[in-house]
């Protein structure tokens, strides 16, 4: 399906938010879509960034230098159409659990995208984000999260907060094992975070993962 590009909001040299028209697309927060240039025949998967009730669809895109799709999407002129397929996937929140438990959202880089979608879609969600990034400027749309509900771990810059990888931070904090844990980002982080949570006696049935690659 073709959708017009409405806005490209540059966040850093390597990240941007792509906003496209929604048309009648319905989705569940956390699902992903395939995006590609019109008539290119090539596409890639991106998690939804916007909320279920937002008027447009938004995607938080990390530009891969050697990539094909992410650099070309950034060059699209406003009003141009791009290809969209989806939504797909089961990295979603069980609506029954929303009022029952606390959610931990553990992510690196643009892996925060599905959690942004969760929070926009479910304003009363009891959540805590643990976000691992390399530098301060990667705190994408930081103001949209409750300041007490997001912890940032910065690995390559010293700052007032936690300096180091999130996998160094995670073992240090108390965890309520009844909570539900969503992990999204690069695979190595997911593997390490999973082991840490299991060591903290979190059941594997309470951990959901989505790898970005």
């Amino acid at each position, binding site marked *: 399906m073709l959708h017009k590009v409405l806005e490209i909001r540059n966040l850093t040299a390597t990240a941007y938010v792509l906003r496209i028209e929604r048309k009648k697309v319905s989705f569940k927060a956390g699902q992903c879509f*395939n995006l590609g240039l019109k008539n*290119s025949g090539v596409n890639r*998967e991106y998690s939804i960034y916007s909320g279920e009730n937002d008027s447009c669809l938004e995607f938080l895109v990390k530009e891969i230098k*050697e*990539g094909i799709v992410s650099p070309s999407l950034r060059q699209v002129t406003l009003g141009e159409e791009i290809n969209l397929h989806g939504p797909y996937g089961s990295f979603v929140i069980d609506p029954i659990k929303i009022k029952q438990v606390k959610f931990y959202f553990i992510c690196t880089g643009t892996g925060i995208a599905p959690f942004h979608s969760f929070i926009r879609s479910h304003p009363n969600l009891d959540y805590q984000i643990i976000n691992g990034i390399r530098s301060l400027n990667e705190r994408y749309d930081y103001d949209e999260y409750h300041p007490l509900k997001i912890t940032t771990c910065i690995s390559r810059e010293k700052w007032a907060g936690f300096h180091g990888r999130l996998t160094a931070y995670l073992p240090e904090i108390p965890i309520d094992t009844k909570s539900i844990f969503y992990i999204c980002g690069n*695979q190595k982080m997911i593997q390490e975070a999973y082991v840490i949570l299991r060591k903290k006696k979190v*059941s*594997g049935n309470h951990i959901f993962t989505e790898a970005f690659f």
Partner: protein
Amino acid sequence: MKIAFSYPPIINSDGQKAMVSQNRNVQFFMKPTYLLPIIQGQAATWLRDMGYNVFWDDGNSQLKTFDCWYLDLIEASPDVIIFESTTPVMKFYWNIVNKIKSDLPHCTVIMTGYHSMRKPQETLRRSYADVVLRSNHIDFVLQKLIPYIDENSQWRENCPIEGLVIRIDENNFHDTGNFKQIETLDLSPDVDRDLVQWKNYAYENGNFLQTPGTYATSVVRDCMFGKCSFCRYNGPDLTFSMRSVQKSLDEYQKLIEDYGAREIFDDSGVWYRGAEAREFAQGIIDRGLNKKDCYFGFNTRFGYLEEDTIALLAKANFRFVLVGLEAADEETLNRLNKGYGPKDSEQNLKLYTKYGLFPHLTIMVGYFWQTREQLNTTIDTVKRFMFEGLARTLQVTICTPIDFTPYHQECIDQKMLLTNDYDDFDMSKLIVKTPIPHNDYYDAIRNIYGIAFHPKFIFKQIQFLFKFKKRDWQFLFTYGIRAIRRVRQHIFNLTKQQKNKVIK
């Protein structure tokens, strides 16, 4: 401890053998294709490396009769037997497990495979199996489980390893919870080719243009897309993991230089894409493996490979690209969650063939919603692709809902299934309600396979000869003869229901 990785010869009433086929489901063939089970091969290698006495017991590839296979197994008297099964052969496996447990009561039987992993309790209730793996990462689970069994007499009650359902007694089972693949895939070893007797799988495979051919240790476990509704690589319990490029390149080098492989296929659900695909192709070139008379092949998805990558793959002597063209109409592609549109397939095929790759299309017919118009769109599109030389080979299968995939669940929820008998899930007939008669889908299969004999297709293959590439000549004069035999067999398998009963 003696451990057997066993595949019994299973023969149906038509005298055909059960073989793992499309999507790792079982189909019956008179002249089978012997596919090396890679993850089991890795598990066997890993356990052997840990010091266990492992033997590879594939009665099919070792050309044993059932009786011969069974007597040999009983005589070997293993402490542990590991089976892999899917829906259409579940009843057979339950019976054989019970027979084995009667003859070898001390033996621990472990069931693996996509059916039992989704319904472990069923297998424990319907047979005397001791353990069911709830994971397809058989290698990672077994390398923990086997030592635990070996070292703990109370293993049934106390085993803490995730991803298992263990029999405690007749009615009580110990469920250890979900398994998630959390370790790097590089920890699992390359398949030991001698252990699995690789040459038994090196010749009878319709996808090899040159032999001996072999399957590489898969670079990707599960699927990086993992959303296609009919596919078993789909579900919250499955994870995506990838081997390092250099480790895989090392294996290719060994397969070519030490074993003399002339065609290597990677059967990962979807192979590398983007940077990893280019790094791999460049690695093949840098090591000079592209000049060793060995072709390479893999599975991919439309939309995953762009022109620069395809050009590099061609330079590295890649040939065979297996790609799913499950349908050619937009509605079906959307309902299957394929993630691309009808036009994308043609664009991708044009690029593959521009650089001399040989696309192989895997087509399916018989979705419960598939109208005559949708079916004809698929037939016409496939014909055009084949006549124009945009694809070189194909296979058609009846879409059979299997092993509790989302499509299977959809069929159950919408009451579209015509049978609950697991034997009927062998892809030999339609088992869902459809908007047009079943015979029309069987005719479509015959029609699509008939492309191989069409003058336009043959003329196109003759045209390819004038490119003066070895692979084109091999394709027509070596592969072509083998292919005709296989095409006839596929037509028999998939349309015999027109002669026999059709489920109504």
